[in-house]
């Protein structure tokens, strides 16, 4: 198709670079610099989409981020087929391909349009009133509603693109590079400030970039020439960074702003290769200057939504900036002078203006005067009451307004046209301002909200501050910026512009029909009409938030940028409430939709979360270990031999650890170095048991509680010297225990002289157990006398592995004779290998966490977080022995003496044996005393740990059971979905209760 709506000259497109692209399967061409919207319009395509609810044909409406109609789906495989992109923002490239969405089979013939016929019975909120019968059919109704709703389709394969993050600090962030933003930047850089200037569009200059050059001049320069000159001067300054295609999404307090820079969406597939798609900027600015501009409003009248009805400023942009005329026979509908500039631009480029319909009585501005001179017909005090044309506007109906604007009078005039430009005045873009906590004030004469106050670190300048006259914008921006930055730099500019500010407003224009028969759209995408708003108010949905939620106005993908003011205006009028008292709905971030990928940046796949590996990790990998995630750690879970199942491997490892020797990587356990003259007293306060009498060189197990009395963590602490201890914690609890101890030390007990250092990563821990462990240690560690007499259970020695110092603790979590070598991390793997070599003759077997859990369960040792869950006290664990009766206080002590914690029939830790020793209980299974035919059944507690013990040749389990202490020997039941398992309560220590094996 040809560019028959493209002017032969003019515009900022690069006419030497022709680009072919596809839309809805047809091939078109445009030029480098075109947006999809401008290229389609150049080809005479207006109909690009269908509305959400009624599936009415919709065309391109605007020229920017506020677009609500022209949303398209990119066609690019299954992994880059973006939905809901705005044709007005997409910059086309060779090979670009997109299609209309929310229509079937095509945008031209959409079966969903049948909804339009039903529109009389589906007003706002209809779904709250129906689909309730029969009750069980809602799921079916919903299925069809969901299919009809939604807009584009999600990609179904993984995104191949890369996203990036950047942190940035600057003196001044200027948002928006229109005339105000450029002027502010000009001032700021003169003072040597570090400035960041950003604009969401690909070009600079804002709306000034498509101003009619015949009307506007700055220092005798055409608008675009002034913009280019200003931009190039700025760009040459090393203190400023200028970013285009960068949209500020959110303005958080303390001048923290989130923005998204689009880096390669506008490039061809070939040029995109290897490039980052989008970058999320996190900016901390000392000062922020908002120059976010304003958004033109439509007019609300019957059938104001047809393709070919466009914002006047957008039409001006298409003709002046892209060299595209959006129609040949144009009607302009306005309430202000700005639309006359569009008329002049169109007229000057040979487009026929059929009429300007102006709701005002008159205007003293020079532009209307000029239009008069040009012979353009102006219908003052008239309004459009209806438009014709299903897929493209072809006629408007015009009638005269009554004196008070409340109704229409006289005869209907029908004007043929193929384009209707609407201009309802401008709304300052105050979104970012309000996000930052700023309050708005309503200007009753000018019909808009604008910033009420400026803060120390933020100002609004230009049209977002309610200033629309170019001369005023630039002068005021200079003055305000100087004040704001404590500067004195003014540049006199000679500005010619001839727009007057006269403006009259009617939120909902009167009609010749009963309102029920009209469709005056307020939110185009969501198909909300003024009638829907009236209905909501009639039904008592009075708050503006209720109106929004009931009618869904302002909730479409433009988030009300186009229609919100009219929705408010209509509510204000009907409820007779002043706009200022009504308030706005909250402007929620982001200003423009923000790609999930950009928010996440590089933190995907392997970078989703840190992986912590022990110094011995690569050895485990090499030897076929399977790993378990424990917090961020990867722990060796088990080491299957060829063809071995997990069960078989764990059985083998567990047997070996008891019969010969086993070796475990315990490096992940938390380690806290505790020093200071009050270290013993400190331990007395944080553990339940007493520490003062622990001899130097001895180890002791401790339980740590929360102040609510519940078990929090456990581990062995060793006294290394008079004032020096090393505490171990659980793997998962290491960081939080450290935090808690520091907290108490700094805030509750500052008088204690104690110093804590987390040394988890500084030491590797190799644990060797089994009857042969002593012999292995003797081969590996020098300078230690391993005799039981010299080195008994629960004690510690310093030794050497080769010439490297190490600490050896004789402690046991398996119940076997067992030693832990703690050595500087980087010697961890070498030490491990030495133990493997030394242990060869004793069939040393590496075992993982699963076997470790099994072994300790045989001994009835708890795992904090498995036997406990934040509701278990030491007494519940039947560990009364660990609570010192002599100590005055320790963390959690007081809570143990409350009525509920002293209750006799609390849940207690017990052992469980299945009647069938081969039957292994499922961890988490619930236990009952009496099995009923059907639920509910009274549950006594649950299985916390369960294994098949290869050393006892039977299934064993630990459980917490109500009143468990008194139930030993009692038969209970574990009802599973398919069967009931009979169990007997037993002691929780299944093996070697006397502890003989510790000295094997």
């Amino acid at each position, binding site marked *: 198709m040809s560019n028959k709506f493209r002017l032969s000259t003019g515009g900022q497109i690069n006419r030497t670079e022709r680009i072919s692209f596809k839309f809805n399967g047809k091939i078109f061409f445009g030029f480098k610099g075109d947006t999809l919207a401008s290229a389609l319009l150049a080809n005479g395509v207006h109909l690009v989409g269908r509305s959400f609810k009624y599936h009415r044909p919709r065309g391109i409406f605007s020229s920017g981020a506020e677009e609500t109609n022209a949303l398209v789906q990119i066609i690019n495989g299954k992994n880059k087929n973006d939905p809901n992109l705005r044709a007005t923002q997409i910059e086309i490239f060779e090979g670009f391909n997109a299609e209309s969405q929310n229509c079937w089979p095509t945008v031209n013939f959409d079966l969903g349009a049948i909804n339009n016929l039903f529109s009389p019975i589906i007003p706002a909120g209809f779904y709250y009133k129906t689909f309730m019968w029969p009750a069980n059919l809602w799921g079916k109704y919903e299925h069809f509603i969901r299919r009809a709703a939604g807009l584009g389709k999600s990609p179904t394969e993984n995104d191949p693109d890369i996203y990036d993050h950047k942190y940035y600090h600057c003196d001044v962030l200027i948002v928006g590079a229109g005339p105000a933003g450029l002027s502010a930047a000009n001032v700021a850089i003169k003072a040597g400030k570090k400035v960041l200037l950003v604009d969401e569009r690909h070009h600079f200059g804002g709306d000034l970039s498509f101003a009619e050059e015949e009307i506007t001049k700055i220092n005798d320069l055409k608008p675009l020439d002034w913009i280019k000159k200003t931009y190039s001067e700025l760009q040459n300054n090393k203190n400023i960074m200028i970013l285009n295609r960068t949209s500020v999404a959110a303005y958080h307090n303390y001048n*923290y702003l989130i923005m998204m820079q689009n880096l390669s969406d506008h490039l061809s597939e070939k040029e995109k290769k290897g490039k980052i798609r989008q970058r999320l900027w996190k900016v901390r600015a000392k000062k922020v200057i908002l120059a976010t501009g304003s958004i033109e409003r439509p007019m609300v009248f019957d059938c104001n939504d047809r393709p070919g009805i466009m914002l006047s400023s957008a039409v001006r942009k298409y003709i002046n900036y892209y060299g595209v005329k959006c129609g040949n026979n144009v009607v302009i509908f306005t309430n202000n002078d700005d639309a006359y500039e569009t008329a002049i631009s169109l007229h000057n480029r040979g487009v026929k203006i059929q009429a300007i319909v102006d709701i005002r009585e008159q205007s003293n501005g020079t532009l209307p005067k000029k239009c008069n001179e040009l012979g353009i017909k102006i219908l003052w005090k008239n309004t459009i009451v209806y438009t014709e044309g299903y897929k493209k506007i072809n006629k408007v109906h015009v009638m005269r307004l009554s004196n008070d604007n409340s109704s229409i009078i006289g005869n209907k005039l029908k004007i043929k046209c193929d384009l209707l430009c609407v201009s309802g005045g401008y709304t300052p873009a105050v979104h970012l301002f309000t996000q930052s906590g700023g309050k708005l004030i309503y200007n009753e004469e000018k019909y808009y909200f604008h910033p009420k106050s400026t803060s120390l670190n933020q100002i609004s300048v230009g049209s977002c501050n309610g200033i629309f006259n170019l001369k005023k914008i630039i002068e005021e921006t200079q003055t305000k910026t100087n004040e704001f930055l404590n500067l004195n730099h003014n540049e006199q500019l000679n500005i010619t512009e001839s727009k007057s500010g006269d403006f009259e407003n009617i939120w909902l224009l009167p009609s010749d029909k009963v309102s029920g028969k009209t469709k005056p759209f307020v939110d185009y995408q969501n198909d909300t009409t003024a009638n829907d708003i009236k209905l909501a108010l009639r039904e008592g949905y009075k708050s503006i938030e209720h109106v929004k939620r009931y009618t869904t106005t302002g909730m479409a993908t433009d988030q009300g940028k186009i229609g919100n003011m009219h929705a408010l205006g209509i509510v204000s009028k009907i409820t007779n409430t002043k706009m200022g008292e009504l308030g706005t709905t909250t402007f929620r971030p982001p200003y423009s939709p923000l790609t999930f990928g950009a928010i996440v940046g590089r933190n995907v796949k392997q970078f989703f979360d840190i992986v912590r590996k022990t110094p011995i990790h690569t050895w485990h990998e090499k030897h076929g270990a399977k790993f378990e995630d424990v917090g961020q750690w990867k722990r060796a879970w088990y080491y299957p031999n060829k063809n071995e199942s997990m069960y078989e491997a764990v059985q083998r490892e567990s047997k070996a650890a008891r019969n010969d020797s086993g070796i475990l990587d315990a490096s992940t356990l938390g380690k806290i170095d505790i020093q200071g003259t009050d270290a013993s007293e400190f331990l007395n306060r944080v553990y339940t048991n007493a520490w003062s009498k622990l001899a130097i060189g001895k180890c002791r197990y401790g339980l740590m509680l929360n102040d609510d009395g519940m078990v929090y963590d456990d581990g062995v602490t060793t006294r290394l010297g008079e004032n020096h201890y090393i505490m171990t914690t659980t793997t998962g609890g290491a960081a939080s225990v450290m935090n808690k101890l520091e907290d108490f030390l700094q805030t509750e007990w500052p008088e204690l002289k104690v110093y804590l250092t987390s040394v988890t990563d500084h030491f590797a821990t190799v644990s060797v157990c089994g009857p042969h462990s002593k012999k292995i240690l003797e081969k590996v560690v020098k300078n230690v006398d391993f005799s039981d007499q010299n080195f008994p259970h629960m004690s510690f020695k310093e030794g050497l592995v080769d010439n490297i110092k190490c600490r050896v603790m004789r402690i046991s979590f398996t119940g076997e004779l067992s030693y832990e070598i703690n050595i500087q991390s980087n010697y961890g793997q070498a030490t491990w290998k030495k133990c493997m070599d030394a242990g060869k003759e004793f069939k040393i077997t590496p075992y993982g966490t699963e076997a470790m859990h099994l072994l300790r369960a045989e001994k009835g040792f708890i795992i904090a977080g498995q036997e406990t869950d934040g509701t278990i006290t030491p007494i519940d664990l039947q560990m009364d022995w660990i609570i010192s009766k002599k100590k005055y206080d320790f963390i959690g002590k007081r809570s143990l003496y409350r009525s509920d914690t002293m209750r006799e029939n609390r849940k207690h830790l017990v052992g469980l044996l299945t009647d069938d020793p081969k039957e292994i209980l499922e961890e988490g299974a619930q236990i009952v005393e009496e099995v009923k035919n059907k639920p509910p059944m009274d549950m006594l507690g649950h299985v916390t740990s369960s294994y098949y013990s290869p050393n006892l040749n039977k299934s064993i389990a630990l459980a917490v059971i109500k009143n468990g202490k008194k139930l030993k020997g009692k038969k209970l039941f574990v009802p599973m979905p398919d069967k009931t398992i009979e169990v007997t309560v037993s002691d929780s220590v299944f093996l070697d209760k006397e502890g003989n094996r510790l000295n094997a």
Partner: protein
Amino acid sequence: MFIIKCPYCGDRDHSEFSYGGEAHIVRPKQPTELSDDQWAEYLFMRKNIKGLQYERWNHAHGCRRWFNMGRDTSNDKIHSVYKMGEKPEK
């Protein structure tokens, strides 16, 4: 997204800090002498003020020191920071 002025390190981003709840709740020196009600008051009951609240923060990804802060919870404006053991500015 506050900027918090750590009394030891100066202005730092909020993400470096962790919150520690209402300040100036002193752990009783003799818990055993408290009634269950008094102990529950210490353990669980909070003013949860909307307005100027004195609260504890820890410069967890910095100097790891605890300190106090006065912050208006209705708008997240920080009024003051002061060291542990010090009294808030009135």
